[in-house]
């Protein structure tokens, strides 16, 4: 075990950062996917007197900023939760949308949902940071999900206002460049485990591109191709409703041709519904994560979108390269044991 090297591995399914064991059986300092962590804070460093005093007195308790594939799988095995897979190209607004859901919940700005917890609070807070005044910015933004970041998941527990039932969601966060790659090689989406496992697909379209005359048709064409790839790979079926979500509604509303843009979107949703036949339910939604004076509130349309999330079946598990036991005594015992490719459905 590489006990002295701290960091994280970018390879899906590898928990070398926790276990010290590389899934490729490489030394951590030789593995091209392993990213060495920042220096340990002085009081925890091996050379500090306080660290020597505290040797053996620090408990690792955090799940990190987000869940890895294996951690998400472990969560799904231990309790009921719905997987929501976000699909869309770069800068379409995936991370902004999921961050805004968290903001609305934690600030009690949704009528029908209340905040009951999250195993990835730090992950949400990091993604929300640039939209807050604490960032020092005058204009809200969202940190882009880099291609270097492996697939990760965010977790949210919400209470439904009607009946106080708890709903848990595991929401995927994948870089948009990966979906660009699907346009070139459609079968690539078969290797995206969150799509196969998802209880719901949220397919995002960029409102700013749709409202730009010079960019609209190209954006629609790419969205069509991506949808067709999902359809052909069997990732759209009766068990997996699809929401076609138009983002950046506030930008659209600020244009002179907003009505035409929205009508074009509605037509496209109808087209995708026709393409999917009876394989899946396809619904359209329009959202604005940022404030718009005309729309009146941050997160316009998001709660309507989420209404469809609460009645999702929770049945499947991930196809993972590691077996993750369901009931364990300590977090460290959640180490992954390599059994090769297994389908645990």
């Amino acid at each position, binding site marked *: 075990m590489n006990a002295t090297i701290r960091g994280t591995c970018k390879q899906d399914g590898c928990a070398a950062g926790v276990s010290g064991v590389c899934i490729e059986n490489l030394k951590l300092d030789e593995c091209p996917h392993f990213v060495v962590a920042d220096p340990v*804070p002085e*009081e*925890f460093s091996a050379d500090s007197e*306080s660290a020597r*005093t*505290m040797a*053996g*007195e*620090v*408990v*690792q*308790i*955090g*799940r*990190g900023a987000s869940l890895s594939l294996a951690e998400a799988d472990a969560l799904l095995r231990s309790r009921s939760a719905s997987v929501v897979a976000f699909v869309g190209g770069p800068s379409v607004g995936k991370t902004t949308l999921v961050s805004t859901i968290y*903001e609305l*919940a*934690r*600030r*009690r700005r949704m009528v029908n949902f*209340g*905040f*009951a*917890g999250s*195993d990835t*609070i*730090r992950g949400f*807070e*990091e993604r929300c*940071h*640039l*939209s*807050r*005044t*604490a*960032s*020092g*910015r*005058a*204009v*809200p*933004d969202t*940190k882009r999900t880099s291609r270097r970041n492996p697939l990760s998941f965010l977790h949210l527990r919400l*209470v439904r206002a009607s009946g*106080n039932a*708890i709903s848990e969601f595991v929401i995927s966060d994948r870089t948009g460049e990966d979906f660009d790659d699907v346009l070139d090689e459609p079968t690539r989406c078969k290797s995206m485990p969150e799509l196969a496992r998802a209880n719901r697909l949220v397919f995002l379209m960029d409102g700013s591109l749709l409202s730009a005359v010079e960019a609209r048709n190209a954006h629609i064409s790419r969205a069509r191709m991506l949808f067709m790839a999902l359809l052909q790979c069997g990732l759209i079926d009766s068990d997996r409703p699809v929401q076609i979500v138009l983002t950046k509604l506030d930008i659209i509303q600020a244009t002179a041709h907003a009505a035409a843009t929205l009508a074009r979107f509605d037509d496209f949703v109808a087209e995708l519904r026709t393409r999917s036949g009876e394989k899946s339910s396809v619904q359209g939604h329009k959202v604005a994560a*940022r*404030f718009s*004076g005309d729309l009146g509130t*941050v997160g316009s349309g998001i709660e309507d979108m989420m209404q469809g999330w609460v009645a999702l079946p929770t049945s499947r598990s991930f196809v993972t390269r590691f077996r993750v036991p369901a009931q*364990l*005594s*300590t*977090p460290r015992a959640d180490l992954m044991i390599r059994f090769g490719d297994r389908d645990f459905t």
Partner: protein
Amino acid sequence: MTTKQIIVGMPGSGKTTFLAALRYLLVSGEVQTSLKLLRLSESEKHLNEIEKSWISCEAVARTRGAANEWVVFHVRDSETGEESDLTLPDLSGEAFREPASRGVIRRPVYDALGKADGWALFTNADRGSDDDLICDLSEVIDFLEAGTHTPNSGAASVEVDDHEGVAFNPDEMPEEAKLVELLQIINRRPLVPRERRLAVIISAWDVVADDGLTPDQWFERKRPMLHQFLKFNRPYWEFRVYGVSAQGGVLPRDRAQLQELSNPTERIKIVAPGVLPHDLSTPIRWLMRK
């Protein structure tokens, strides 16, 4: 019987000041209290130090870094006559910040949290907002600018000199996010989830007392994330809310006025249904009765 309670809260949330005032309250016997002190404990050094500052109307020094003090009160419940040894670790706020920001927790703190039968969770009413949305601020600015609109200003856009922003620092996460994560940790494997009582102490209550809100209303409105989490995670967390001013005023502005009081206990203010005036032991007794 020994009951273990724990006082938790971020740096500057008022934990140590509360302890200092509680100590004076129990020892002096100047006012009627829910808990009565039976005898002094083996070590009173830490309490002596913080109480000294409190009596002098000086800001009580925060417990910092690795300095953690464990205090014991030997008390009797005034109503039931039951005697208890009340253990209250006075831990640094930094110790409670680390779990959410760094994913680690010091073993003594972890053990104390896990073993505690009840929690007194502190949040300071006088701290500024730490999680404002830029969008919300823009709304306020737009509203104010609309009110000062002049015919010649037109719709000219204001040039915004924006920059990339300050990098995310997990240590600087909003207080509510850190507190909620702390509450989640203690019911997460390998620990076994169990029911606990939690007294929410809104410190520096005198700063907001004139806003016309009860502590319950203030907590629901000003700490929505924490309030929702506690509300929707019953029965694991049974909570009550108390508005507390352990200093009795703002220092150093009100020092002279506070020092003129013949009984220092009269500085203490606590607001909650059914609470005796100045009785800081009430929330502690409620925690002990679980």
